[in-house]
């Protein structure tokens, strides 16, 4: 229903614009002198007053209507309901709301006095529902009509409609820019709020230096040692391990492709190699994840099992036994596939950076008799080093925050042991966030709050890496400008 109200409001505003423009035009044609503003600008002014206040009201209704109704419904609860636990009371209100909207299937679970109370609440909810909805829509209609009429009455040859309308456009532009800032505020606030509650239960030092991570065992709060289960070091090690493998794969391949593309390749080769790398960069990470889980992981496991099978019984029996037990959800597979994902990222960033090295440096080197590769290694790369380092740091930051590849390759379940072995299953910060926050969740449990603690850590680390990288790249660009 609200959507129809929105659509109606937009239709009304459009009609207002057309009508006001015609009116302003007619007034201008008959007038003895030119009005200050064009008819379109006068109409825009009227439209702003027709649209914006009513739109804000409807939007508020959309965002907070449900909460107002819940608050009203919770105001006076029957005794039978008040006897319930607080969370059951909430559920009761929700159910009443659902039944009132005609989608209640859970109503059957109530009987006796609760059933009677529910029926009463449902009737009440229907009334409030209608009141809030129709009251809000009627109010919005009045506001839209009054706004447009009042604005229309102010129009005249001397009225500076253009400046007013442009002033409002400017406000709109500033608001749009503010969304970016608000997003940051929202990110930090949402992470910080839950994290602070988490850190009241678990000391930050224990979280950052603890060597044991098993959040599921802490479900029962009376359990011994439940606080010790939130040591995030195994996750940090797992993240670093996978990031290192990824960079070992991506850094040389990405850098060498960038060098070849910027220093050696002719325009023909660039014309087809660069789009192909762009396609690789555009492949969604979930696809890489499936690739790791269905193809790379099993292939690696088969390979290591085969080697292990050959070693078993020989002088290296211990290693053989271990290798033949290797599972496909190993850190190595996730790292290698993540490395493949990072290749185009590193390559395109490094390509830009190498191209920014002035040609004069290369020419000077050639004039001294250096070969192309010597020029690249001894002149271009050292000159581009800060930029390349910045590109690598950005890639590292991406590897740390990457979720889907690791989630699919490693699985969300096991492997939270502290290990540096790339053939073992590990877990990362992102994987733990997903497994803690998906499924049925109550917000007050330490497990969900722990996810926000991990999220905050992730945010801070990637933000720091980014700021450093952007500084380096910027300083480097200015050096040659």
């Amino acid at each position, binding site marked *: 229903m609200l959507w129809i109200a929105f659509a109606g409001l937009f239709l009304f505003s459009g009609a207002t614009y057309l009508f006001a423009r015609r009116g302003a035009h007619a007034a201008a044609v008959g007038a003895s002198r030119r009005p200050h503003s064009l008819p379109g600008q006068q109409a825009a002014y009227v439209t702003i007053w027709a649209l914006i206040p009513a739109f804000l009201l409807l939007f508020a209704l959309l965002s907070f209507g449900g909460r107002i109704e819940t608050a009203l419904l919770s105001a006076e609860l029957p005794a039978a309901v008040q006897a319930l636990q607080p969370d059951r009371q909430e559920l009761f209100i929700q159910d009443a709301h659902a039944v009132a909207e005609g989608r209640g299937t859970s109503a059957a679970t109530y009987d006796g006095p609760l059933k009677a109370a529910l029926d009463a609440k449902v009737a009440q909810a229907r009334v409030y529902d209608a009141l809030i909805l129709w009251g809000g829509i009627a109010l919005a209609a009045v506001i839209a009509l009054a706004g447009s009429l009042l604005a229309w009455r102010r129009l005249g040859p001397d009225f500076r409609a253009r400046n007013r309308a*442009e002033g409002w*456009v*400017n406000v709109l*532009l500033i608001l*749009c*820019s503010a*969304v*970016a*800032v608000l*997003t940051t505020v*929202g*990110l930090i606030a*949402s*992470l910080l*709020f839950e994290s602070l509650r988490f850190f009241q239960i678990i000391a930050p030092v224990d979280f950052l230096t603890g060597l044991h991570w098993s959040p599921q065992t802490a479900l029962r709060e009376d359990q011994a040692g439940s606080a010790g289960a939130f040591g995030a070091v195994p996750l940090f090690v797992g993240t670093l391990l996978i990031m290192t493998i990824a960079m070992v794969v991506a850094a040389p391949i990405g850098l*060498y*492709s960038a060098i*070849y593309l910027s*220093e*050696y390749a002719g325009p023909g080769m660039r014309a087809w*190699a660069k789009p*192909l790398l762009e*396609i*690789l960069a*555009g*492949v969604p*990470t*979930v*696809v890489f994840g*499936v*690739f790791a*889980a*269905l*193809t790379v992981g099993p292939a690696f496991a088969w390979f290591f099992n085969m080697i292990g099978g050959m070693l078993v019984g020989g002088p290296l029996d211990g290693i053989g036994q271990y290798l033949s037990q290797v599972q496909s959800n190993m850190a190595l597979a996730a790292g290698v596939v993540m490395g*493949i994902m990072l*290749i*185009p990222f590193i390559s395109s960033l490094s390509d830009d950076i190498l191209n920014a090295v002035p040609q004069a440096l290369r020419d000077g080197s050639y004039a001294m008799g250096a*070969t*192309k*590769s*010597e020029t690249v*290694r001894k002149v271009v790369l050292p000159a581009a080093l800060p930029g390349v380092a910045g590109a690598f740091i950005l890639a590292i*930051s*991406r590897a740390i*925050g*990457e*979720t889907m590849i690791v989630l699919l390759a490693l699985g969300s379940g096991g492997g939270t042991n502290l290990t540096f072995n790339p053939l073992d299953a590990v877990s990362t910060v992102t994987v733990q*966030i*997903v497994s803690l*926050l*998906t499924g049925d969740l109550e*917000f007050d449990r330490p497990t969900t709050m722990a*996810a926000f603690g991990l*999220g905050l850590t*992730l*945010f801070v680390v*990637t*933000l720091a890496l980014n*700021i450093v990288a*952007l500084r380096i790249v910027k300083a480097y660009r200015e050096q040659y400008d």
Partner: protein
Amino acid sequence: MTDAALTPAPAPALSAVRAAAEKRLKKRHAAEARFRAYGLTAIALAIGFLAFLLVNLTMQGIGAFTTNTFTMPIFVDPARIDARDLQGANYDMLVADQLLARLGVENDELGENSLKAKDLMSPDLGYQVLDRLKADPSLIGRTITVSAPVAGNADLYYKGELGREIAEENRKLDNQQLDWLDTLKAAGLVTSGFNTRLFTHADSTQPELAGLLGAIVGSALMLLVTALVAVPTGVLAAVYLEEFAPKNRLTGFIEVNINNLAAVPSIVYGMLGLAVFINWLQFPRSAPITGGVVLALLVLPTIIIATRSALKSVPPSIREGALAVGASPTQAVFHHVLPQSMPGIMTGVILALAHALGETAPLLMIGMVSFVPSVPEGLTSAATVLPVQIFIWENASERAFHERTAAAILVLLVFMIIMNAIAIVLRRRFERRW
């Protein structure tokens, strides 16, 4: 004269120097060739990975685009179905028993054989019989023809996977069931064809019944929300920052802020969505509107950065020309600069939306990972999207879902390639050098 006498003396030294120099040169040229080869190898590897990825996924997924359909007349036995209680009858067993009869196999005392026959066919056969009876109860006692896909494992067998080369105890279907499947195929009851169901149905717990339509519609709805929120906001924010904003500390901070937002891990946006939109603003869980808004915030920095660079590429003379003939700054921007930079903006917007289409992690946070067996009806109904559908199917245990995972990836990649191609065409076609 003296020259002739002198030349022989330093000759050996010179040749030694030359030999050494040539040796060194050879080494340097070899190093050069090696370096070049490294570069070529790196590019070949990168493109080889891409080719391998695509070929591998195509090989895995291509099978899911065909399916084997089973068609058989079913006698609606009045002895087994009570017209007053249609729901109460067991239609799966009705179909299975008639299948056994058709195969000429006697059912044993425990009914094991009919259970085995039931495993070969999709439960949709039973639902279809029930639906037909609900529509027309007079069909009881008559024979109706129903048609549905064979079960996932049987389908894989027909496609040459999970065949007899695998030891019987490692298979879901035993030798007897495979014999039956061969008989059915030979009798012409099973036909192979294009899997239209993949594009006309939503998700299901049965691999043979699962389709992508729900996910495709969900993705479309979500992208619609993302575009409606992110494109106007991003473009207008970029216009402000590039054209109107005074150069002071605040705008400098906003700029740094946007650059940093572009590199925040996507999963953190999911946590923002969970904490702010779902918990605080009470948006519906797993709905396209919630996912769309979260992804809009995710791609907003990308759109702002792309729009700014498009605006920057419009030469100042356009702006100044408009101002010179009396346009206000707002008119100069909205009537002249913005239209001129539209192709660049559209390219950036399409690439950003393509990114949003492939994004998965933040959507897991806001509950889009739940099982949704119906096509979403609106922006607030529970839905899933293509990348999340891929994730869900990959996590399913049945082999037949793996084939569909790869097929879903191919569908997703086709959409991404279409979007990217549009962006490239726009860039090529409307790119203007000033």
